[in-house]
């Protein structure tokens, strides 16, 4: 099927591409652009490993057709650090050891960043519930939640 022209703004850079309509945003990011930080887990929207931020909202990129993301602002895990400084959420995951194999980590970090941007004052229980769409198969989530709470606290105090 004919490829269609799309213009994606990914981590601030504009990409003018020709893509097949059946390619998901996840496939475009990983295979076309080469940004492999975003992971493909279940591919059915259940695990959250493919979470990216589109126009300020966390979404599962495996459920989005790339052609429908044209002219939208997309942020992936590769776009969080700036000027060589990790984003506070990234740093908190490192400091608390909020990961083991690391496969779910980009999705957790992107989902957490969007949640903290929306409201950094959530309780532990509220963060736990709001992160229900992200699955980690290594850990018991304790360190992940600790990281999110630390990041939220830091962002609250530096705002």
């Amino acid at each position, binding site marked *: 099927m004919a490829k269609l022209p799309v213009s994606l703004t990914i981590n601030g850079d504009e990409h003018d591409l020709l893509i097949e309509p059946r390619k998901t945003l996840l496939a475009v990011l990983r295979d076309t652009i080469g940004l492999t930080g975003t992971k493909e887990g279940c591919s*059915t929207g259940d695990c959250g490993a493919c979470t990216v931020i589109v126009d300020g909202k966390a*979404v599962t990129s495996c459920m989005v057709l790339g052609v429908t993301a044209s002219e939208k602002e997309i942020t992936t895990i590769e776009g969080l650090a700036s000027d060589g400084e990790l984003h506070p959420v990234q740093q908190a995951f490192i400091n608390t050891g909020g990961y083991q194999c690391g496969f779910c980590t980009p999705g957790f970090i992107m989902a957490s960043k969007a949640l903290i941007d929306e409201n950094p004052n959530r309780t532990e229980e509220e963060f736990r519930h709001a992160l229900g769409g992200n699955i980690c198969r290594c850990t018991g989530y304790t360190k992940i939640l600790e990281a999110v709470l630390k990041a939220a606290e830091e962002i609250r105090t530096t705002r």
Partner: protein
Amino acid sequence: MKSFEFFEPTTLAEASRLFAAEHAQLLAGGTDLVIGMKALTETPQSVISLQKIPGLTGITTEADNSISIGATTKVREVELSADIQQHHTALAEGASEIGSIQIRNLATIGGNIAHASPAADTVAGLLVADAQVDIASTDGERTVPINELFTGPGQTVLTPGEIITRFRLPSPASGSHYIKHKIREVMDLAFIGVAAAVNLDNGTITDARIGLAAVAPTPIRATEAEELLKGNAPTPELLVQAGEAAAAASSPISDLRCSAEHRREMVDVLTKQTLQQALERASG
């Protein structure tokens, strides 16, 4: 995923014309369609995106507190809308039960309804809101009450080319509530969904609506239970009768997740609980 031709019309008329063709599918949030296309349970030859059509998205509240919700409004927006939380609590609660935040940021209320799953989480709330469904096609427009929209699992009265454009919720009841019976806190399908909306006047129930999801081939209203409630004071005995009448109205199936007997019993229990909560809100 099979290849398909992708269309992004900018008018409803064009979308309807394209959608009237064979093997055409509408794309709203994509959370059902894209997954279905990957699984090859959906193999459309053309996919018609609704996102470039103006006027299909957003929530507006009129002076009389009636509310209009555009079909492609994100479920997350429905969940977080202060007006819907206040006037149609059951609908906001139902919206908040869908998938994860990431999914609710994509999924639309129109998609949740047009997909016609008997277990859709927004449907019980729309039933007890007495929602009117506006539908457009190249032949014009029509309005169908939500309780007349569904004809079977995955089936609606929509004809080829017809597109849901908005949901209109008339003046609200004073208290409503939705309970989803499930195993996981998030990312689960409803075993049963029960919504109730009530109006109270001086201790008498002047209006009662009960919506049931996932307990019949289509979402249903428990009208006999509603009639029992109307005109009476909400005594514990009356709520027991209403629960039994709602269970009698259900015709659940047994599946991998639970038995029909369990579902019917839980309709009874959850109808009482949902009514209690709705009554508390109505008197508060």
